[in-house]
């Protein structure tokens, strides 16, 4: 759909994109400021706030926890989500229709309510340790990505290919790994990335489930901002943006950036 656009509309869109990009540029600028308070434009340029991050054990620890959570919850969600997505597509007629709705529920229930409920029932009620309760929470919020994105990939997979492989003597489980999985690879990669990013950035669920000694990076950022107004948080934010760029680069390499355009 191309054609002439009103110059006023184009100007408006340019303004919107400045609005979208500007604040991120400002964060980068603020992270370089040689002042003890946050300001933009930066006054003097320094990288010392980046060094400060790694000197502060709270940031070091929460970064590690966040990476652990994102990696483990994503792998766990894929481990249980891929078979579920496969079953939903392969045996659709034999399964009730509400089953697919079930896996969307974590999106439908407000995350903050989920966090509070997990605190009540799982962490306090069932006595599950902080780390594991946090992992359960993260797995729940990333599960919809695993199921839905892989499902979408499977929806365009022709299952007669799988039957062809089985008819040629390949055992079903082996067929799944050698025939089905390679054909929905793009979906699995996309699901992995979306799930990982969602977990890394989560606030609302982690808010209730972090406990003494175990916290995640976004929660630590919130806590730090409440007490200090120094550029450290801007530096951490820049690191998180670098992570986003890295993720987009991975997408570029594996799926092509046009994948994001869908």
């Amino acid at each position, binding site marked *: 759909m191309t054609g002439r656009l*009103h110059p006023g509309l184009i100007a408006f869109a340019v303004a919107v*994109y400045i609005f*979208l990009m500007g604040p991120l540029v400002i964060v980068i600028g603020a992270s370089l400021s040689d002042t003890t*308070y946050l300001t933009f434009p930066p006054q003097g340029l320094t990288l010392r706030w980046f060094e400060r991050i790694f000197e502060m054990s709270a940031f070091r620890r929460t970064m590690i926890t966040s990476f652990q959570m994102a990696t483990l919850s994503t792998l766990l969600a894929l*481990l249980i989500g891929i078979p579920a997505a496969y079953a939903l597509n392969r045996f659709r007629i034999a399964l009730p229709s509400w089953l697919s709705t079930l896996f969307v529920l974590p999106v439908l*229930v*407000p995350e903050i309510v989920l966090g*509070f409920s997990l605190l009540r029932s799982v962490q306090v009620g069932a006595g599950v340790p902080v780390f594991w309760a946090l992992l359960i929470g993260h797995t729940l919020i990333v599960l919809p990505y695993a199921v839905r994105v892989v499902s979408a990939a499977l929806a365009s997979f022709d299952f007669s290919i799988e039957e062809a492989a089985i008819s040629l003597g390949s055992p079903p489980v082996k067929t799944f790994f050698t025939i089905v999985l390679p054909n929905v690879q793009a979906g699995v990669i996309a699901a992995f990335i979306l799930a990982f990013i969602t977990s890394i950035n989560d606030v609302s669920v982690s808010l209730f489930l972090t406990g003494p000694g175990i916290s995640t990076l976004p929660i630590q950022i919130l806590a730090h901002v409440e007490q200090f107004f120094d550029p450290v948080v801007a530096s951490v934010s820049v690191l998180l943006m670098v992570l986003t760029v890295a993720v987009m680069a991975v997408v570029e390499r594996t799926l092509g950036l046009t994948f994001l355009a869908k």
Partner: protein
Amino acid sequence: MKRLAGWTMSAPATLLVALCLIVPVTATIAATFVTGQGPFAAYAAFFGSGFRRAVLIRTLEIAGATTILSLLIGFLTAYVVSRAPPRWRSILIIMAVFPLLTGVVVRSFAWLIILGRNGIVNNTLVGLGITAEPLPMIYTQGSVIVAMVYLFVPLMVLTLVGVLENIPDDVIQAAQSLGAGPFATFREVIFPLAVPGLIVGAVLVFTGSFTSYATPQLLGGERQMVMGTLLHQRAMVAFDWPGAATISAIMVAVTLAVVLGMTRVAKRLNPMAT
């Protein structure tokens, strides 16, 4: 046989959702009806408190304003993106994806730098001599709305670009061949066909902003408390779990009502579905 295989493969995920989502959330909601002073005492207390009523109303206002602004900005931008030349379109889409993948905390925090005492806006105002003292801009309802709009515009743009690109070229060309100019084509064909998508986008933004925590916490603080921050304050600061449960139940009710109500409207309005 197929049924058994299907259930077996989906069992782990089903169990996780059932045990760790449905059971705990249901328990939270059920707890609000078991208070010892009758089934609706918790709700009577909530709506009886002027402060909590004000929080609910403020949250609805912020969510409503965010939704309307995001719809307007998002739709016009998405229209430009969808009609841009292919190379530009990919760049513009990637530029919308980038903030979306950058976390809520980072993006809300950016507005602290912009609107804060030593922020860029105040520095400019004082520098130009427009005001003598920095203006208090954070901890206002406006600052929360601005940051929320900032948060949700990329989501809206991406949702609506998809919707607009799904409108077949030949339908638009048919309108042109029948004498409809660019404005008439937009008003009579493109906009009506985008309405279901606008509703989906509105639902995403409304529920997202209604249940948000980080943005109102950073930019609204205690002065602009909303449902999310109130829930956290009740549960983690005041240790008033029954109160927090009631807030949870109201949030679930509003979210479900909006999602179910609007998807029904969207379905009825969607001629492509039939």
